[in-house]
């Protein structure tokens, strides 16, 4: 855990290093995305599929509520004890022979990994799926250091091959069609012929990766749950590539955010059960890897050396505020994006951040600061679909409202300023809301305004900001309800 003031310096450094498209250009990209009929159709289809798969796993709403309640409690309990649990985790992992590293920011995390890689004269690192490694842009850092980092999750492999970022945290290549992948493989995979058969395409990818698993000096993975009491890292996956990355190369580096720790092994099953059901609509994934250390003397397989890199990257800022702390309850299932009407229409790339959709809107401000991200919390109609499906009951709409406020105001008395606090402050907008409040707290003035607006309804402006982009102008009625009710009472 790091002090508040440090994360400010770090996140400023981050913004320079990130090679994401800037989140501040969200509106432009969103407008392009909604105009793309192909993108709209493919995201809609994919999200509908995932929504239906999830729904089939939760036939009983009462049972689901009790499962969510339990999962929420486990996450809140873990976060309440986070500093202690992290120290306990470090002690137990160290005792198990795992080297634990702490990184406040992406630069530190990359430096730790690159140092380990250099020590082992690494040419190739194979990677299991890790969103934290996306967050720190590890692949770029490795390339800059002259080493190759190869994604081995099929979706991640596809987007890396095409020089893209994931558009979804669980299904990174969900924006791509089969035909696009067919063309991509034929063009970019040496020796691959053109095929539109999904099985054959997967076969091509697997053949490439199988070779790489055997030659890579380092395997890198993420972590879904880190168990403090036993020093165990749990890794949830479907393709077996996670197990390959964590067992075949001589060195395994796991990387994760500091919030992923739970106290006891028994805390894992309730979270795991909701994670897979919420994410892909699976009752269970093909693999649940539980890793407690490197190869022991006399054992025939497993890495000889193992590391865990614990990354802060703005998480302590969320942690230090009682309400915002619930952001860290997230178990990265992606259900909020699957159910989000905004994400469904613009896809993940428009957000310009590692984490798109509702969870991205509430966590990115901590990682990148409000100056770069203040538009993201506004990209929601507050419909509440995200909060409704969140397996750990993060009150996402309330957090969006809170972040909208923090972006437009100075820190409240007694609260530390967030990174980029007040970045969207506007004297004009302040004046509009103050004027609004003045009108709506003065009933006589309000009624007079209603009287005038209805009498002069013919003068209603024909252009009304964003409203009239696709709508006819709003026009007051002939008489307000106030007037009609007053007339009734007089009768």
């Amino acid at each position, binding site marked *: 855990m790091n002090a508040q003031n440090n994360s400010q310096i770090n996140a400023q450094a981050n913004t320079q290093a990130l090679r994401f498209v800037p989140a501040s250009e969200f509106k432009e990209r969103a407008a392009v995305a*909604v105009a793309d009929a192909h993108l709209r159709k493919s995201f809609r289809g994919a999200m509908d599929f995932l929504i239906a798969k999830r729904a089939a796993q939760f036939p009983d709403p009462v049972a689901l509520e009790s499962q969510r309640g339990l999962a929420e409690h486990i996450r809140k309990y873990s976060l309440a004890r986070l500093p202690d649990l992290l120290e306990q985790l470090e002690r137990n992992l160290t005792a198990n022979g795992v080297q634990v590293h702490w990184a406040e920011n992406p630069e530190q995390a990359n430096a730790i990994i690159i140092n380990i890689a250099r020590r082992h004269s690494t040419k190739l690192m194979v990677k299991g799926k890790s969103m934290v490694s996306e967050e720190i842009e590890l692949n770029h850092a490795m390339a800059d250091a002259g080493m190759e980092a190869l994604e081995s999750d099929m979706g991640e492999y596809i987007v890396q091959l095409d020089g893209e970022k994931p558009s979804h945290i669980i299904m990174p290549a969900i924006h791509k069609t089969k035909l696009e992948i067919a063309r991509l493989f034929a063009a970019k995979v040496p020796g691959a012929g053109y095929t539109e058969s999904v099985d054959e395409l997967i076969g091509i990818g697997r053949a490439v990766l199988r070779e790489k698993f055997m030659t890579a000096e380092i395997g890198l993975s993420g972590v879904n749950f880190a168990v403090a009491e036993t020093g165990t890292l749990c890794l949830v996956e479907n393709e077996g590539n996670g197990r390959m990355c964590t067992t075949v190369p001589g060195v395994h580096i796991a990387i994760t955010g500091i919030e992923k720790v739970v106290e006891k092994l028994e805390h894992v099953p309730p979270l795991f059960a909701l994670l897979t059901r919420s994410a892909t609509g699976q009752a269970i994934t093909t693999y649940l890897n539980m890793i407690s250390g490197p190869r022991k003397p006399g054992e025939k397989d497993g890495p000889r050396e193992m590391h865990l890199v614990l990354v802060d990257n703005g998480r302590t800022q969320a942690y230090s505020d009682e309400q915002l702390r619930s952001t860290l309850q997230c178990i990265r299932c992606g259900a909020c994006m699957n159910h989000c009407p905004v994400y469904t229409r613009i896809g993940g790339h428009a957000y310009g951040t590692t984490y798109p959709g509702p969870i991205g809107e509430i966590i990115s401000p901590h990682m990148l600061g409000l100056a770069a991200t203040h538009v993201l919390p*506004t990209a929601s*109609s507050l419909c509440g679909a995200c909060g409704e499906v969140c397996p750990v009951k993060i009150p996402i709409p309330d957090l969006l409202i809170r972040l909208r406020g923090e972006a437009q105001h100075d820190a409240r008395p007694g609260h530390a300023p967030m990174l980029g606090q007040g970045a969207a402050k506007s004297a004009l907008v302040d004046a509009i809301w103050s004027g609004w409040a003045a009108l709506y707290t003065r*009933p006589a003035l309000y009624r007079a305004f209603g009287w005038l607006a209805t009498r002069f309804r013919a003068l209603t402006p024909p252009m009304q900001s964003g409203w009239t982009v696709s709508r006819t102008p709003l026009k007051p009625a002939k008489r307000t309800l106030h007037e*009609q*009710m007053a007339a009734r009472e007089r009768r």
Partner: protein
Amino acid sequence: MDETGNRHYPDKPPKVYLFGTCLIDMFCPEAGMDTVRLLEREGIEVHFPADQTCCGQPAHSSGFPEQTRAVALAQMRLFPEPWPVIVPSGSCAGMMRHHYPKVFADDPRLLAEATALADRIFELSEFLLHVARVSLSDSGQPARVALHTSCAARREMGTQVHARALLAQLPGVDVGLHEHESECCGFGGTFSLKHPAISSAMAGDKVDALKETGAETFLSADCGCMLSLNHTLQKRGDPFQGQHLASFLWQRTNPEGGRR
């Protein structure tokens, strides 16, 4: 979700307050008048405090807590008698029932006031169904309608359940289900102004889905959503239009037909 399950409902009261909402006041007052007509027909006296303005939701969802508090406080004191407060809008009802206590969470005295008021807030369709316990008699021609319940109405006030139950009392009315029925129509208050491209795409999809049911009209218990969709349709030159649930219920069940 408590409105769909666990809420304890009082007996039918002789008197209620009406909170008309700022959008109904200015843009669809007939929905407010039809609300009054529906309530009075049940023998309930409707009081409309003349000093009411807006529940404060626009400032709340835009991140202006100070202005939200000022406007919310100006409403909170307008309902001194222990009568139910009827709100013909799911999102405004949701604001007053679920968000007022959060808005005043840091002030024990105001929190107690907000909580006491929240207990008396009823969205119109919920009140008609569970408190007034209406028995509607259909006097209209057979009609097919679609129903759009706003997100706040659905998720905070359970409106889709109540509205469907009310409409089910009308034998001549066939309620069509539309694709992605639980999905947002793209209004979202200031969202429609700040993100017009996304909001328009959502509104466009919603009107397409509503029309695909083959309905003659769509109904909504929220004026904001209804206006957003109606004005989207008007811009397209499409004569398909929605109406407020209160107006539809009144017109279908008033033996004289139409309005008084």
